[in-house]
C-alpha cells in the first residue's frame, strides 16, 4: 500500500519539480522516488497480507512481487531518458509523472480485489500510455501510434466493461472472491450463458491489453510509432501488470469455470505464439521485431495461464512471475540499447546495428545478452522463464501446446540472432561507424541489466519459487 501512496504523492511532487524548469534534477528525483517505492515495496514483502479500501485492494506477496517487477523495470528504464534531459524536453516532468502515475495503475492491477479496481487500474495505465504514445507531437508516426492505441484501446475497454457488466449481472458481485463463490452456486445456473459471455469478453478485453492474438493488431504499429523509451515501458510494465491481473482474475474469480475458459486461452496462446514469432521473422526494423516478439512473449506467458492451478502460487504463478521478470529486464536492455542507437544513428533497422560490437562493445554485449534471454538460451533468465512455464504446462499435461511453443521458440531464435549478427558479424556502414556516446551512468545501468539477466540465468533459484 505504501507504494501506491508514495507513488501518488511523490508523483505529484515530481510534477511540481517541473516548475523549476530544471530537467537535470528530474531524472535523479524520479529515480530516487522509485528507489524509495521499491524499498517500501520490499518492506511489504514480509508483512502479512492486508486488505485496503473496503477490500478493494489486497497487498500480499503476489502483488508485492509483481509490484517489484514493474517498479524495478521502470527504475532501470528511466536512465535511458537522458536524451530528453539533455535536449531540455519541455514536458519532461509531465512524462515522468505520467509514468509514476501509471505505475499506480499497474500496482492496482496486480493487487485488486474488486473489478472496479481492475478497471480503474487498467484505465490509469492505458490513458497514460495513450498520452505518452503520442508524446513526440510533431512526429506523424507517433501521432498515428497514439490514435491507434487510443481508439483500439478504448474499444477494448468497452468490451472489457461489457464483460464485467455481464459477470456482474450473472453473479451480482464485483468482488473477486464473491464472484468466485457465486460461480459455484447452483442457483445461478440459469444465468450461466451470461456469465460465460461475460468471462469471454473479459478475457478478450484483458487479452487486448497484453496483446494476445487475435487482438494484437495494435501492438506492432503502436510500438513502432511510440518513442522507444515509452515503447519499452509499454512492452514491459503494461504486459507484466496485465498478466498479473489476468492471473488474479482467473484464479480468484473464475477457478470454477476453468473447464470453460481454458480451451479459449489455449487457442489464443497458440495463435499468439504463431503470429508473434512468425510475424517477427519478416521484420526489417529491430523495434518492430521487438514488438512482434512482445506478442510472442504474451503467448509464452499465456502458457502460464493454461497451466492454471487455481492458486496465486505454485508453478503457474511462479512461472509467470519469473518469466515477466526476465522478460522485462531483457526487454528494457534491448530497448535501452536500441534507444541509444536510435538517438545517435537515427536508425532502428538491423543494419543500423552493424558493427556496433566494434564501436561500442558494451552496448553490443548487453544487446546480445538481452537477445539471448528473449530467445531463451541458457545462461540467461529467459531460458529459465520458458523452462518454468513449459514445465508447468507439461505438469498439467499440455504436451502438445508445449511442443508447439518449443517449435515457435525455435523460430524465435532465428530473429533474435539477427541483431547479434548485425552487431558482431557485419561491418559498419560509413554513416554508423562512429561510436555512440554512452554516459557512464547509462553504462552502469546497462551492465546491471546484463548482470541481472545472467544472474537470473545462472541462479534462478534466487527468485524462482518465492510465491
Amino acid at each position, binding site marked *: 500500500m505504501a507504494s501506491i501512496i508514495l507513488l501518488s504523492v511523490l508523483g505529484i511532487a515530481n510534477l511540481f519539480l517541473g516548475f523549476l524548469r530544471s530537467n537535470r534534477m528530474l531524472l535523479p528525483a524520479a529515480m530516487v522516488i522509485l528507489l524509495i517505492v521499491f524499498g517500501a515495496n520490499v518492506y511489504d514483502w514480509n508483512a502479512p497480507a492486508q486488505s485496503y479500501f473496503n477490500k478493494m485492494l489486497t497487498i500480499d506477496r503476489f502483488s508485492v512481487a509483481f509490484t517489484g517487477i514493474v517498479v524495478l523495470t521502470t527504475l532501470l528504464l528511466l536512465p535511458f531518458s537522458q536524451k530528453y534531459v539533455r535536449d531540455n524536453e519541455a514536458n519532461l516532468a509531465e512524462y515522468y509523472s505520467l509514468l509514476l502515475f501509471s505505475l499506480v495503475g499497474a500496482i492496482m492491477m496486480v493487487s485488486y480485489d474488486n473489478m472496479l479496481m481492475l478497471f480503474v487500474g487498467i484505465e490509469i495505465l492505458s490513458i497514460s500510455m495513450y498520452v505518452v504514445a503520442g508524446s513526440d507531437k510533431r512526429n*506523424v508516426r507517433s501521432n*498515428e501510434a497514439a490514435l491507434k492505441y*487510443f*481508439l483500439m484501446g*478504448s*474499444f477494448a475497454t468497452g468490451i472489457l466493461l461489457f464483460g464485467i457488466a455481464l459477470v456482474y*449481472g450473472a453473479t451480482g458481485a464485483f468482488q473477486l472472491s464473491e464472484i468466485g463463490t457465486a460461480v459455484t452456486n447452483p442457483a445461478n445456473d440459469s444465468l450461466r450463458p451470461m456469465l460465460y459471455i461475460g468471462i469471454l469478453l473479459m478475457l478478450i478485453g484483458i487479452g487486448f491489453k497484453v496483446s494476445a492474438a487475435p487482438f494484437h493488431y495494435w501492438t506492432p504499429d503502436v510500438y513502432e510509432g511510440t518513442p522507444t523509451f515509452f515503447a519499452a515501458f509499454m512492452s514491459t510494465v503494461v504486459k507484466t501488470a496485465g498478466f498479473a491481473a489476468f492471473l488474479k482474475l482467473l484464479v480468484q474469480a473464475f477457478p470454477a469455470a476453468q473447464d470453460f475458459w481454458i480451451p479459449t486461452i489455449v487457442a489464443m496462446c497458440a495463435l499468439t505464439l504463431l503470429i508473434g514469432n512468425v510475424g517477427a521473422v519478416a521484420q526489417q526494423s529491430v523495434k518492430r521485431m521487438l514488438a512482434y516478439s512482445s506478442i510472442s512473449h504474451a503467448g509464452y506467458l499465456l502458457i502460464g495461464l493454461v497451466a492454471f492451478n487455481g492458486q496465486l502460487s505454485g508453478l503457474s504463478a511462479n512461472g509467470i512471475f519469473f518469466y515477466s521478470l526476465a522478460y522485462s529486464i531483457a526487454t528494457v536492455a534491448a530497448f535501452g540499447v536500441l534507444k541509444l542507437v536510435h538517438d545517435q544513428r537515427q536508425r532502428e533497422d538491423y543494419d543500423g546495428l552493424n558493427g556496433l560490437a566494434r564501436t561500442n562493445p558494451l552496448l553490443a554485449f548487453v544487446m546480445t545478452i538481452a537477445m539471448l534471454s528473449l530467445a531463451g538460451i541458457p545462461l540467461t533468465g529467459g531460458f529459465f522463464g520458458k523452462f518454468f512455464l513449459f514445465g508447468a504446462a507439461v505438469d498439467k499435461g499440455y504436451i502438445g501446446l508445449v511442443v508447439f511453443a518449443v517449435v515457435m521458440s525455435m523460430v524465435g531464435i532465428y530473429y533474435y540472432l539477427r541483431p547479434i549478427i548485425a552487431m558482431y558479424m557485419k561491418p559498419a556502414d560509413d554513416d554508423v561507424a562512429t561510436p555512440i556516446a554512452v554516459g557512464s551512468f547509462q553504462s552502469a545501468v546497462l551492465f546491471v541489466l546484463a548482470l541481472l539477466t545472467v544472474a537470473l540465468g545462472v541462479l534462478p533459484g534466487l527468485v524462482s519459487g518465492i510465491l
Partner: protein
Amino acid sequence: MEQTIPEVIRTVPLQYYVFFATALFAIGVTGVLTRRNAIIIFMCIELMLNAVNVLLTAFSAYRADPNGQVFVFFIMAVAAAEVSVGLGIIVMIYRNFQNTDVNLLSRLKW
C-alpha cells in the same frame, strides 16, 4: 404512489434491459467498424460505454446492490478522462494532417 428509482427501473423486465444494452453496444461496435472519422468512432465507443452503464444500472437495480451504480460513476469519470486525452490526440492529429480520417493513418504497418 411514489416509487423509488430502482422500483421504476424494475417495472421493465430485466431481459429488456439486457437486450437494449446489447443492442446499444452492438450499435456502438457497428459504428466503430463503419465510420472513418476519428471523432465519430470515439463517440461510438462512448456509446458502447453507455450501454455498459445501462446494463450495470439495471442489474444494480434488480439486485438492489449499489455497487453497480458506483461502478457506473467510475466509468463516467474514466470516460471523461479518456475523452480529454482522446480529443487531445485527435486535435493533434488534425493539426498535423488537417484531417481526422482514421484510414489515412497507415504509415505504420506490416
